[in-house]
């Protein structure tokens, strides 16, 4: 299509050359002459497309008449049959020229598509072999420049904040940022004639409806379809890179969680084993030698030490992030039953009342963690209310919340201290005589919050404390 005008003189020359050749062999039949001239028309149309083809057909008709139909070297025609022959010749010439030009153009189109496909395939292979963003961006512009046969390429990528920034560009690339913005914000592409020759094109890069960036090519000779193909490939490559990155990160996090978990298990084992051995030895000693004040004291202290180690381990687990809740839908009554069963020993001296009214209400929580949290509430109630008094456990179901309550008949906590007691190691002066670490309530609150609930203390009606866990109600 470049230098198209050259086809006209070339077609003229081709016809002239054919005439010259034919004149070298006199005595050829008219039909042979006509066929050879048609061949010249065909070749002209094939080589230089339809304009020169038409010219060749007309010229061939003229020279056929002038040089080969009697009377020679005039445009007059003696035999009336030759008028018809000449007319048929002209029509055939025009048709052959036209068909030949169309066939040639189709061939070229197919060839161009094949080239595009080949370069897209190469491009996709190159993108797929890149597994990280840096190396992908390092080579992307050169590959795109080759594939799109253009002067300048720029790739802009959207960030976390919703803005789009240049990620890679060929050196010296100047682009219109307003068009980049337009492509990024509205997903509209723009293409127009370039001052560098060819086309300038601004294309959004997206995956589905999600835009990931903008591709700019300047002075592009390839088709727009090719550019669109490149944009799609680019979108896929970026998305793939993002998934690979996420997968790597998830892998790393998992490995570190696993390590923490193993470390904590080892720590728990190393701390609990000697305590278990010591406590067992004291118990065996008491069983053999009989109870004594000293032995009893040692045993009590061992038990306290065990409990503190357990609480400390719980705090470490909570802080390390290993204790992620594994939620399932359970009935509030199950949590109450589990907590009473596990921490029942602490309630030995009290009378226990469990109100099962709303125990069917469902919550989506880690059952073990909530059992632990409610258990701290029970232990607290037992520790801070006189023996023989009543401890009440209730489930209260509201339309969208479920409350687990523990009520005691103790001295209660003054309103000003009700938040402070949730701080770690905080123990109120009035309760110093009661053994404890000041960790229980803080652990309980962390556990409840991790499961999407709240934990608070309030005054119970008729004195004492109301320990209340409030959880979103789950729908079965």
């Amino acid at each position, binding site marked *: 299509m470049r230098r198209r005008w050259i086809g006209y003189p070339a077609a003229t020359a081709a016809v002239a050359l054919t005439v010259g050749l034919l004149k070298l062999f006199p005595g050829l039949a008219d039909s042979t002459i006509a066929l050879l001239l048609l061949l010249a028309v065909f070749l002209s149309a094939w080589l230089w497309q339809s304009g020169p083809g038409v010219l060749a057909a007309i010229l061939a008709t003229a020279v056929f008449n002038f040089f080969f139909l009697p009377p020679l070297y005039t445009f007059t025609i003696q035999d009336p049959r030759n008028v018809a022959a000449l007319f048929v010749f002209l029509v055939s010439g025009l048709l052959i020229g036209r068909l030949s030009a169309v066939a040639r153009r189709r061939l070229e189109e197919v060839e161009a598509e094949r080239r595009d496909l080949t370069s897209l395939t190469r491009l996709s292979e190159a993108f797929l072999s890149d597994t990280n963003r840096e190396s992908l961006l390092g080579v992307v512009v050169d590959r795109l420049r080759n594939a799109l046969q253009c002067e300048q390429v720029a790739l802009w990528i959207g960030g976390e904040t919703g803005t789009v920034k240049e990620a890679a560009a060929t050196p010296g690339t100047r682009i219109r940022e307003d068009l980049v913005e337009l492509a990024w914000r509205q997903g509209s592409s723009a293409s127009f004639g370039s001052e560098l020759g060819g086309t300038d094109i601004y294309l959004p890069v997206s995956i589905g409806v999600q835009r990931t960036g903008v591709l700019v090519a300047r002075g592009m000779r390839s088709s727009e379809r090719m550019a669109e193909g490149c944009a799609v490939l680019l979108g896929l490559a970026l998305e793939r890179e993002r998934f690979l990155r996420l997968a790597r990160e998830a892998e790393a996090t998992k490995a570190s969680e696993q390590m923490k978990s193993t470390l904590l*298990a080892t720590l*728990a*084992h190393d701390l*609990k*084993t*000697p*305590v*278990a*051995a*010591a*406590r*067992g*030895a004291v*118990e*065996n000693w008491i*069983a*053999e030698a009989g109870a004594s004040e000293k032995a009893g004291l040692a045993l009590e202290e*061992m038990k306290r030490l*065990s409990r503190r180690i*357990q609480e400390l381990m719980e705090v470490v687990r909570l802080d390390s992030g290993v204790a992620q809740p594994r939620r399932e839908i359970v*009935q509030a*009554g*199950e949590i109450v*039953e*589990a*907590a*009473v*069963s*596990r921490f*029942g020993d602490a309630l030995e001296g009290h009378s*226990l*009342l*469990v109100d099962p009214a709303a125990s069917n209400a469902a919550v989506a929580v880690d*059952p*073990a963690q909530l*059992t632990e949290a409610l258990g701290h509430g029970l232990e607290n109630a037992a520790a801070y209310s006189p023996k023989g008094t009543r401890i009440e456990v209730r489930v209260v179901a509201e339309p969208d919340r479920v409350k687990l309550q523990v009520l005691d008949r103790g001295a209660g906590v003054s309103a000003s201290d009700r938040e402070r007691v949730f701080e770690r190691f905080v123990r109120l002066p009035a309760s110093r005589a009661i053994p404890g670490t000041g960790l229980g309530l803080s652990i309980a609150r962390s556990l409840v919050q991790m499961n999407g609930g709240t934990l608070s203390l309030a005054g119970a009606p008729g004195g004492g404390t109301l320990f209340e866990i409030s959880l979103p109600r789950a729908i079965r």
Partner: protein
Amino acid sequence: MSRVLVVDDEAPIRKVVRDALERVGHDVETASDGEEALARFENGEFGLVVADWNMPGIDGFELVRRIRKRSGVPILMLTVRSEERDKVRLLDAGADDYVTKPFGVAELVARAGALLRRTDARAGPALLAFGEVEVSPDARTVRRRGKAVHLTPTEYALLITLLGKPGAVWTHRQLLTAVWGTTAGVSNDTLRVHMGSLRRKLESDPDRPRWIRTEPWVGYRFTPEG
């Protein structure tokens, strides 16, 4: 009385467990790892195995699986792990019960005793009376304080299943399989409802059951000594 195999890699724990069990009259052998335990198990008859979970080499979990392949001997596990999921895994693999470290010696002796009575009971009549309750399997009747108690077929099946392994912990899945024949379509909630009504019929304080105990988030246990 009964021969007990104690397996733990920690010598102090082995000593404590041995002393405690020997004091109540059991005959105790010890092993310091899984390999040794399996070798001793090959050469002797034991009424109970007490094993630690965390051991180098063949750990407690693997030990349970290997012992279960050749014997139904009761197995009591010692563990520092307090996660229910771990316990369920252990029980489903074939352990009968577990004690969490640091444990009280009295508790250990009681649990071991309950599991050992099961082996002894094979010779004599099955344990069919506890507290105020008497069960007559032939007549399929249950009496409490001499008065007949009406149990639904499911409640009766649950009770008989629990009595079949006194002292042992049944996971939810094991109970569902034993009583319903399947875990499909039956939830833990269903189990809980039946257990609740069984307790109301048999326990004097159903909120603090003595005989049919809940193992939180693991399953249930029948405690023969209440």
